[in-house]
């Protein structure tokens, strides 16, 4: 199999299989979660509450006062990684083309220099949060195989994409093929690992905001 054949497989059957597993898994997991149900709360909710599920979906993206100082690596690393990853994912023109190919939606991209910076920032942040995971006693206690797997699966697309873009170490075609394959691995693993937080975070934040909100607290 030549690199171009590998790339073709990745763009063709590989992508279809990965997206199919991802879609299957997300649906399955959502059913799994919602099937456990939630008893209607019979207590009288406050009429005028500053909080709500929808508010918390947004507000939890910001650090609560005081916590940034206590956990700077987690916050800054987390922000830089998520933003770097998101900018690279959603504003690199070839990625937009992929979305256009899948959904017909498209939007303007950013110059490659900007993408380059965001990808490098994302990679460095990932390394920083890994170092923190390995050295911080709390994170080390909490972390298991899945956490490191999720880290690797997130790191690989950025790393291979960077290698491909800059023609480093490996031939571009092979790098591009590996890049797409790494994204496919990410998609396959997404519903069944910690990576599912990309979907469930909206659910959990909503529940949190709703639980607090009905008591009159903006959480």
């Amino acid at each position, binding site marked *: 199999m030549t690199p171009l054949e590998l790339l073709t497989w990745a763009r063709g059957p590989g992508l279809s299989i990965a997206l199919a597993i991802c879609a299957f898994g*997300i*649906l*399955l997991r959502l*059913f799994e979660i919602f099937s456990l149900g939630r008893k209607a709360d019979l207590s009288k909710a406050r009429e005028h509450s500053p909080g709500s599920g929808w508010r918390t979906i947004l507000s939890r993206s910001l650090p609560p006062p005081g916590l940034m100082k206590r956990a700077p690596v987690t916050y800054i690393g987390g922000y830089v990684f998520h933003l770097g990853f998101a900018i690279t994912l959603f504003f690199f023109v070839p990625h937009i083309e*992929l979305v256009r*190919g899948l959904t017909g939606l498209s939007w303007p991209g950013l110059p490659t220099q900007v993408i380059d910076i965001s990808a490098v920032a994302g990679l460095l942040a990932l390394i920083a949060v890994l170092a923190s995971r390995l050295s911080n006693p709390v994170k080390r206690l909490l972390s298991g195989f899945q956490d490191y797997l999720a880290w690797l699966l997130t790191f690989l697309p950025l790393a291979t994409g960077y290698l491909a873009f800059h023609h480093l170490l490996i031939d*571009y*075609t092979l790098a591009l093929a590996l890049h797409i394959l790494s994204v496919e691995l990410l998609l396959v693993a997404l519903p069944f690992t910690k990576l599912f937080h990309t979907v469930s975070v909206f659910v959990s934040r909503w529940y949190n905001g709703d639980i607090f909100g009905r008591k009159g607290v903006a959480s």
Partner: protein
Amino acid sequence: MAHDAPTIAETLRRQGISRRGFLKFCATTASLMALPPSMVPAIAAALEKARRPSVIWLSFQECTGCTESLTRSHTPSIEGLILEQISLDYHHTLQAASGEAAEAAREAAMRENHGKYLLVVDGSIPLGNAGYSTIAGISNLDMLKETAAGAAAVIAVGSCAAYGGLPAALPNPTGAVPVSAIIKDKPVMNVPGCPPIPVVITGVLAHFLTFAALPELDDRGRPKVFYGESIHDRCYRRPFYDQGKFAETFDDEGARKGWCLFKLGCKGPVTYNACATTKWNQGVSFPIQSGHGCIGCSEPGFWDMGPLYKPLSMPIAPVQMMVGAAAAGGAIAGTAMAMRNRAAKKAAQAAHQKVTVDDLEKAK
């Protein structure tokens, strides 16, 4: 190739070409071979010693496009000089002789120059049925094996000879294979392209002529000087890619301004060839300069590598159906799991025994 044959430099001098003219020839040859101008002295030195080689050109499952390309090389005098310098002893499209006389010429060249002649092949070789392609009643496979046996080196010209090309496109009805699938005991150089750039063909011939050896090859048997970099990396429109400026259609403002053709399916990023610098038609232009993306014709299996007009990052096959089906499958499996979960939770609730204060501690 007789030992008393004159060297190429001698031949040129006999034709009344001065040393200055020879150096000009060397400089243009260097340019042709995509070698840096600093190589001119080495080329001159090599040509002082180089002697006229015998060349046998075999055409198998091909369209003659490669030969057409070669004969339309934009440097007729140089290439003419080269073709004059080589002894093209067999080329069934170009030679005057035909039938038995032609085959006799091939056999004679093979005999006289055994171990020293250069074999050039265009077209792929069918393995499915020997009768799919024959010349003078000889199957392509037999003729290739027989002719390659005494060759110093083999040059596979064009994507068909190098990779199987169009005949090998799915479902590959003739079982077409490239030269390299058959010839394993000789140096085989691939000069892919559909067709290859004319000056690339003459360039590699010039290299063999000049240095009596094949140029440096990459891991896929291609001369590095021509195939070392991707079209994308040498493309004059590359700055637009970096700035995020793309033509969206073939007739929009971006297309008129000469912006990057990535979104229109350009395969430049994964295609390794010299088109962007060497160009075509007497150096006038190349596909991207003419407003059309690269189709990647010099890459293996390019015909089966997805739609020509879809960007590289786009999926090749429509995935909506499959993803939709998978999502439906996920919903069905999810519903089954949900029913199981509900039943399990109900069972747990049914198994609940009311907790009294006496139940807060384990029985001693």
